[in-house]
């Protein structure tokens, strides 16, 4: 809502407060003012001039040479380039010495050999928003009404001395979608009175009911329909002051009839509509719901196909308006219109809202109906418009209102106790303080006993329905700044994070300590991304948005990997080839094509490594990351989280390199749980994403949360010495060394403290298809010193077993 400061001051005395003062006060008490716009953008010395003569410039085809009377002794000779200039016009003239917006100074000038003393201005040159003016005026000079006084200051004539407060209204404060509503708010803040406009109709001898009739067939959607009949209007432009105010509010002036309906809508917040009464069948109005696929052409010349839920105004034979949204072209007020049926109604907010949403048609009218207009203003606004129509369109207002009222406005009376106010706000207000707030708001009340009052809420404040709403009024008018600060009384509670939350933080901490960056990606993705890399939940159906903003963001992700690949590609394209990142986030899984219950939201951890292992350094040979870098991150992470029994089992799921991928499993002793996958991205996807070798991991965190343990159980340090033995063997190249390690563990049992691989060699020194493996074993007994003999005996069993099981050849 754009509120003119000058116009507002007609309803409430704002003496002593500038527009910006009011803006600050409104904002601090709950009606936010977005900006305060000065209409005068820097004009001085522009006056109304009368074009006495207008001839072609002797030396230029497109220029005119004019003699202009600006109310001074001497007329001015001015050269003008506008097409629409003509003798006999009243126009804005910037006389020599004038300044136009943008600090544009007007001086005497010579144009093609002829002197020009000033400039005739267009609306744009005056800094006006000419979007609301007719096209020929936008392209040429601003032509003023003939009755404008020559020599008058243009700022006065065009109302440019005004300022406009642009209100950013919350949905509850639709009362401020009107000048009067805003005036009540200002009056409450400043503690002043509201002056209502004149709305006393003097009617003619014609009886309205003889000329028009109203029938409401949809009382649940149309609560009140009232109409007046105005005869013999003369259609002409509305007075300039009215046009100025409409334009300040952002509404296009059309003609006096339409302008008056809009003007009153701005005053009262009650939308009105004027029908050409002679286009209505016998002056009849019938309110009903549309029929399926019924069609009508609205004022904007668009044919609309209607639905059964839409409320229509008809004349019994044809639709003439979509109730509360837009009038029909067939009954529009035009230059030839003589008699008018003026509509003022209360349509149900949700009905208008649904209709305007379905038609994609929002208007100043629908905007107000949607939020429920004040039922008391239906008649007041009708009468006010009738007064203005007789004043500015010479209309004769027929006697009486023709109406159907189906829903009475219930009075809102709310009892409120002083104690509740103070208990709720934590304040120490007296009853007088509270009453004072209601006085300022112009809410009447009845005192029921010492501490209680019953407040009679005026119908303009439909947002107030409960005692807490009144408490808010008390708080905001009294001032939120005057509410003290306190801390809760009552039991203290211990705050804490859940186990899951702690572990999530631990994962972040360890992976970042290992040099990985945490990333966050969107949950929406392109279906092709899911197809390219289905991840662990390939069998899940996809959750899709009903109306996505783009295909790119239409489907909920089922894996975090595709977006991680995009992050790697994004960074690669910016010369950042070494990407080591992880994300914890949710994927969305369902078995249903169409949801009938919430999808499962699984939290995953994904890691991506690509590029070099080490940061570039003069002393370090640069190596690319490989499977074992990623595996090491996982091993450390699980150790850190206290999870034991981690197993890597060869696997070849979709999207991964079949020879370089493992399923990560946990052997809990009772069962094997698959947590996720680790491996190299399949080279064909790598190529499609234009990446270097990429290693990826994705695991479900639910099990990780369950299996993690913060408990540390101390094991005493060994008291007896360990004995080390190394083994070097040659085995088949494809043999997985994990199998040898398992065999060693099985044979050596509890006396084996550890086994590690310290060398692997393939090449000239071993025959082809073979590899040499060197392992280091440590034996120890916890309760005594092992003898060399028993270790030698055990160790040779271990070696024998390896030789036998893996056809291994011992290197000596």
């Amino acid at each position, binding site marked *: 809502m754009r509120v003119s400061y000058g116009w507002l001051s007609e309803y409430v005395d704002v003496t002593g407060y500038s527009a910006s003062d009011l803006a600050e006060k409104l904002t*601090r008490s709950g009606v936010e003012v977005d900006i305060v716009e000065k209409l005068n953008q820097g004009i001085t010395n522009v006056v109304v001039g009368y074009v006495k003569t207008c001839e072609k410039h002797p030396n230029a085809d497109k220029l005119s040479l004019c003699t202009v009377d600006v109310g001074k002794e001497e007329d001015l000779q001015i050269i003008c380039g506008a097409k629409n200039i003509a003798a006999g016009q009243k126009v804005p003239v910037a006389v020599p010495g004038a300044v136009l917006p943008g600090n544009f100074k007007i001086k005497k000038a010579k144009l093609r050999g002829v002197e020009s003393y000033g400039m005739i201005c267009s609306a744009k040159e005056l800094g006006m928003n000419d979007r609301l003016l007719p096209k020929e005026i936008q392209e040429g000079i601003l032509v003023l009404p003939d009755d404008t006084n020559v020599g008058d200051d243009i700022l006065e004539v065009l109302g440019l001395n005004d300022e406009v407060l642009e209100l950013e209204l919350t949905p509850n404060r639709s009362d401020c979608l009107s000048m009067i509503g805003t005036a009540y708010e200002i009056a409450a803040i400043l503690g002043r009175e509201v002056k209502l406009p004149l709305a006393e109709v003097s009617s003619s001898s014609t009886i309205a009911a003889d000329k028009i009739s109203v029938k409401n067939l949809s009382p649940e959607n149309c609560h009140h329909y009232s109409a007046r009949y105005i005869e013999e209007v003369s259609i002409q432009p509305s007075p300039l002051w009215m046009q100025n105010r409409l334009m300040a509010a952002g509404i296009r002036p059309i003609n006096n009839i339409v302008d008056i309906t809009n003007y009153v809508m701005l005053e009262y917040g009650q939308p009105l509509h004027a029908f050409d009464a002679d286009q209505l069948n016998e002056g009849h109005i019938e309110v009903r719901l549309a029929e399926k696929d019924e069609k009508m052409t609205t004022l904007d010349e668009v044919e609309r196909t209607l639905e059964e839920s839409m409320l229509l105004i008809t004349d019994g034979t044809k639709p003439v308006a979509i109730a509360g949204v837009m009038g029909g072209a067939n009954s529009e007020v035009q230059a030839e219109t003589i008699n008018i049926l003026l509509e003022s109604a209360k349509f149900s907010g949700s009905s208008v809202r649904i209709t305007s949403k379905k038609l994609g048609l929002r208007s100043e009218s629908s905007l107000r109906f949607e939020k429920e207009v004040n039922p008391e203003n239906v008649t007041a606004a009708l009468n006010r418009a009738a007064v203005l129509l007789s004043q500015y369109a010479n209309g004769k207002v027929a006697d009486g209102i023709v109406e159907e009222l189906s829903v009475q406005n219930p009075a809102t009376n709310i009892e409120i106790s002083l104690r509740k106010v103070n208990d*709720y706000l934590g304040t120490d207000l007296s009853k007088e303080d509270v009453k004072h707030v209601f006085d300022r708001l112009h809410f009447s009340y009845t005192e029921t006993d010492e501490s209680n009052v019953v407040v009679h809420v005026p119908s303009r404040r439909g947002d107030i329905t409960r005692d*807490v709403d009144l408490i808010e009024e008390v708080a905001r008018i009294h001032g939120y*700044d005057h509410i003290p*600060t306190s801390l809760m009384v009552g039991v203290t509670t211990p705050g804490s994070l859940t186990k899951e939350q702690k572990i999530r933080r631990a994962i972040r901490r360890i992976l970042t300590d290992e040099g990985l*960056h*945490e990333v966050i990606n969107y949950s929406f993705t392109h279906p092709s991304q899911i197809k390219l890399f289905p991840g662990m939940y390939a069998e899940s159906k996809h959750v899709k948005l009903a109306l996505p903003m783009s295909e790119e963001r239409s489907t909920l992700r089922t894996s975090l990997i595709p977006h991680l690949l995009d992050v790697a590609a994004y960074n690669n394209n910016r010369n950042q080839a070494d990407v080591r990142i992880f994300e914890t986030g949710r994927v969305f899984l369902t078995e249903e094509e*169409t949801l009938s219950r919430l999808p499962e939201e699984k939290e995953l951890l994904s890691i991506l490594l690509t590029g070099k292992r080490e940061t570039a350094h003069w002393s370090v040979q640069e190596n690319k990351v490989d499977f074992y870098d990623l595996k090491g991150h996982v091993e450390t992470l699980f150790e850190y989280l206290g999870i034991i029994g981690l197993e890597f089992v060869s696997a070849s799921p979709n999207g991964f390199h079949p020879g370089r991928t493992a399923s990560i499993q946990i052997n809990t002793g009772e069962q094997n749980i698959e947590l996720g996958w680790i491996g190299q991205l399949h080279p064909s996807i790598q190529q499609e994403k234009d990446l270097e070798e990429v290693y990826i991991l994705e695991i479900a965190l639910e099990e990780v949360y369950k299996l993690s343990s913060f408990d540390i159980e101390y094991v005493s340090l060994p008291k007896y010495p360990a004995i080390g033995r190394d083994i070097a063997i040659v085995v088949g190249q494809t043999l997985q060394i994990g199998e040898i390690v398992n065999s060693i563990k099985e044979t050596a049992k509890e006396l084996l403290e550890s086994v590690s691989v310290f060398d692997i060699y393939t090449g000239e020194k071993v025959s082809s298809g073979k590899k040499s493996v060197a392992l280091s074993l440590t034996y120890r007994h916890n309760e005594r010193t092992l003898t060399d003999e028993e270790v030698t005996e055990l160790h040779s069993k271990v070696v024998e077993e390896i030789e036998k099981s893996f056809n291994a050849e011992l290197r000596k």
Partner: protein
Amino acid sequence: MKEQLEALKLEALKELESVNDSKTLNDFRVKYLGKKGPLTEILRGMGKLSNEERPVIGQVANEVRSAIGNAIQSKQDEISRKELENRLKEETIDITLPGRKPTQGAIHPLNKVIQDIEDIFVGMGYTVEEGPEVEKDYYNFEALNLPKDHPARDMQDTFYITEEFLMRTHTSPVQIRTMEAKKGEVPIKIICPGRVYRRDDDDATHSHAFTQIEGLVIDKNVRMSDLKGTLLQFVQEMYGKDTQIRLRPSFFPFTEPSAEVDITCANCKGDGCRICKQTGWIEILGSGMVHPRVLEMAGYDPNEYSGFAFGMGVERIAMLKYGIDDIRHFFTNDLRFLNQFVRI
């Protein structure tokens, strides 16, 4: 013989002066003190001396031996010192070359901010609750006093999946789920961080997905002044002890009274600058007293219980805190962006 010994001593000490390395020194030791050396030779001839001469000469011979021995020792020390000096000199490195740094990753700035906020509220006795990102219309709207076709639903343009299911537009449904799970028990003191979704075109200040963190307190006798006090405590922990707050009346369907909360601009300390648009204040929170209708629907009698709720956008807080100018940076994950948050 005595003269012979003295001459030997002089000769040896003189020769020692020119010895400069360990090897020559060793040869020198063998030459003078070794088994075939002149001193040993002389001492062998002692047998021929008289009983009177023998102890005198013996003493002189021992003196000469120890003088040479001591001289060798100090020469040895000198040489070792010199050799160590030389070795250390050779070992000198260029300390201006860069070190081998273990790389350190960064927690994403949004999660960093969430963790900071969580820590403050956990310290004030709150627990952290989470909820689903795909929600039922009921939890996202209806139970929050936003019935179907309520104009206030326009405040949040929604991604629907079906008529009943949608992407949550705020973290407030977690409030309702928590209240339902608590089945009328008090106190409730929770904060709920999480991702939310709105149909906005992505630009420098809008994102179709962003992060909220909100709080809820329900108990007997919870007052609006408690809300003010709690928020003051929070912002002073978060932004410093001299931070002040200002509440402005506003509207949210699920709170009444409702308030927008401004804090004094951390950049200009309230004097007015570009960041706070010359007002000295920066809006960071929405808040209010829980609407009685919301309490009723979740099974709490509004005549017996009251509560407050507040919510903030994590991106906004992070942008203000770090001076980030474009919300899209949080989701682009440019390493040059992430690298800047390595510091604690």
